[in-house]
């Protein structure tokens, strides 16, 4: 009728998955930093690591989905939980895609923009990092989720502002750049910024889920 074996296995899978996402976003940050510093070899290592983390996370997500549905665990919550897991997986997926785009398109980033790009990456990654304690809290202390999520919104807003400022600087002040380079920079700013947007989407979902659990 009921067993703790599957519950324990599911918990282990969730924890492992969250660990992968946590590591993945850190690797993304390191990858961008290495790209900007011109450390090609280390950048490629980061790309490799991120790619393998993303594959592992996908595998864990599928395993979790299997166990939740085949063992009929949390019939009322599993849909929401799987959506949350998918949102988190999406963050990792975006991080990998973005880093690949750096590798494929090799964008030219003028030195005067390096500091801004560093900061933007830091803000976007911080938004994702701040999401993780909220996600962990949802499973054990749902009442604490809200207070853990406010940082996500703050970092997301700051990342938005900085991205706008970078785009304005590129198009209005850096007249020496070709139009194609400007477009390229705009896309890469957008790529980095999308991580914080994905974190915000996950945070919105998490807030509702936590609210549903506490009422």
């Amino acid at each position, binding site marked *: *009728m009921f067993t703790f074996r599957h519950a324990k296995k*599911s918990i282990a899978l969730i924890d492992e998955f969250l660990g992968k996402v946590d590591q993945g976003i850190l690797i993304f940050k390191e990858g961008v930093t290495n790209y900007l510093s011109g450390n090609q070899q280390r950048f490629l290592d980061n790309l490799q690591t991120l790619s393998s983390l993303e594959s592992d996370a996908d595998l864990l997500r599928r395993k979790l989905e299997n166990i939740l549905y085949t063992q009929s665990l949390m019939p*009322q919550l599993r849909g929401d939980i799987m959506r949350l897991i998918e949102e988190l997986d999406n963050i990792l997926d975006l991080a990998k895609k973005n880093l690949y785009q750096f590798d494929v398109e090799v964008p030219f980033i003028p030195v005067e923009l390096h500091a801004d790009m560093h900061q933007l990456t830091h803000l976007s990654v911080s938004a994702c990092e701040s999401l993780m304690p909220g996600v962990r809290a949802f*499973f054990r202390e749902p009442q604490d989720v809200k207070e853990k999520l406010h940082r996500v919104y703050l970092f997301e807003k700051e990342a938005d502002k900085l991205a706008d400022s970078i785009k304005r600087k590129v198009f209005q002040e850096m007249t020496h750049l070709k139009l194609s380079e400007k477009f390229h920079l705009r896309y890469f700013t957008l790529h980095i910024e999308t991580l914080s947007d994905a974190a915000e989407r996950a945070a919105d979902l998490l807030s509702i889920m936590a609210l549903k659990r506490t009422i």
Partner: protein
Amino acid sequence: MILLYLAAGLFLGWTLGGNDAANIFGSAVGSRMVRFRDAALVGSIFVVLGAVFQGRGGAETLNSLGRVDAMAGAFIVSLSAALVVYYMNSRGLPVSTSQAIVGGILGWVFFNKLTPDYGVLFKIVSTWITGPLLGMLFAASLYKALKKILLHSHIHLVELDTWIRFSLIVVGAFGAYSLGANNIANVMGVFAPMAPDVLVHFGLFSIDGVQLLFLVGGLAIATGIYTNSRRVMETVGNGLLALSPEAAIVVVLSQALVMFLFSWSGLAHWLQSMGLPSLPLVPVSSTQLVVGSILGIGLVKGTREINTRLLAGIGAGWILTPIAAGLTAYILLFVAMNVFNLPVLSAVSSAAGEVAQAKNTGTLRIDFILPGVIAISGTIIALLVWAFLKTKQKQLKAENELLLQQNINLESEKELDELNLKNMHAANQELSERIEIMNREFGSLALGLTGQKIFFEEISSQLDKLGQTQLTKEQEVALNEIRSLLQQKMSFDKEKDTFYLNAEQTNKAFYERLEKNFPGLSQQDKRLALLIRIGLSNKEIATMLNITLKSVEVFRYRLKKKMGLEQQHSLNDFIKNL
């Protein structure tokens, strides 16, 4: 005949099983935390245990309201209650069996022009109000306490889910026991005065005639649970209030506690011995208790979620049930007595509290120790085998579902591959079309060059004719310069270089295939093949290669030979399909 009369009680037990068991497991099954078959199994076992071991108190109270001492009378009271409950059940309305049976008894009392014991009636009716109120109180306090515990327990959500399932089963078992203990009086209470005077020994325990009767009633309830409770479970589980699994535990526990208290004779006796007011041993409606409990939770959570329309429907059912059962009993008693001439009242005075026939003729004792031990051992072995097979079946099912899931994933991947293939085909098609267009452009270019060459040849022949006439020295020099310029222009070297460069680039793949399949071809052969592929005529090819038409034919013959083509094969078709 006795069995026929009992059939009405069994029918009522069956309807009670269908209706009231849903109050215990409805929320759990409705929220999909517990499977119906698990709920039915646990519910059936415990309802029988409760009925046999703790069902006596409620039956005594009902008998003191009106002692139905004739088998036909008991049959009709039971049947009328069962019909009303069944009808309301079939309309999807939660209905109280307790109220139906009380209505039936009152119908019998009034039909026989007897006076009901108003004290007992008041006691019973008061429980219709105190029961739900107590349920509400228990539910509100338990819900608050449970929420507080959960808030500070820091149990992982997935683990909590398993604990909740476990709790739902445990409180469900307690609820089923209490239901059996409290509500068996509704099913078999009216037949209790006519129970056989026997005592059956099972070694560790023994049961008397009334308990045997209750055992049969409990089995009828269990049958009702298995066959008739799913639909009502949905009404109670999902209709009134969208219950969370935590709330479901509280609802079941609070109703189980109230029913247990209203059937616990030990507590009643202890309270009486202490000089305290005791709780009446009265069958209470589990439906009312559920509603009370849900209201209690609703009050804690805020009443926004309560479906008041359904609540009003249930309230109307409470009033209608005893009236309908009473009227049905009255009419059926009239028919039984006047049409079938059945005695619905014993000749002996039926005044409440009066003991019927003296039962001092000696109790029949039956020793059932050995069969009991065999039956229990058999049951245990069967359960163990069942559990083993169940685990195996579950494992197989899980593996099967996993395989199915993997199959679905593979199918998706296959579809994705097919989609990619289609995209590639489309891209290839587009590329082929572009190559075709460019080749046509090259053809036009070659045609233009041929036209220009013809034009220049015409000018050259005119100049030759002019050269044969008498010219001055300066005129001859100028004419020769023009001829030389014309000859240079007629070679079209620059245009041809550009043409070949572009054509080779566009047909790069073709060029590679040509080199791979026919490594012995000369540069001239490859160019000829390229020009054929572009679709140029021999005349155009002659212009492009700066050779005569006859030479083109010779070159084509050689190329065909180098490619190993037979006489009947078309060189053009072969090259175009390469």
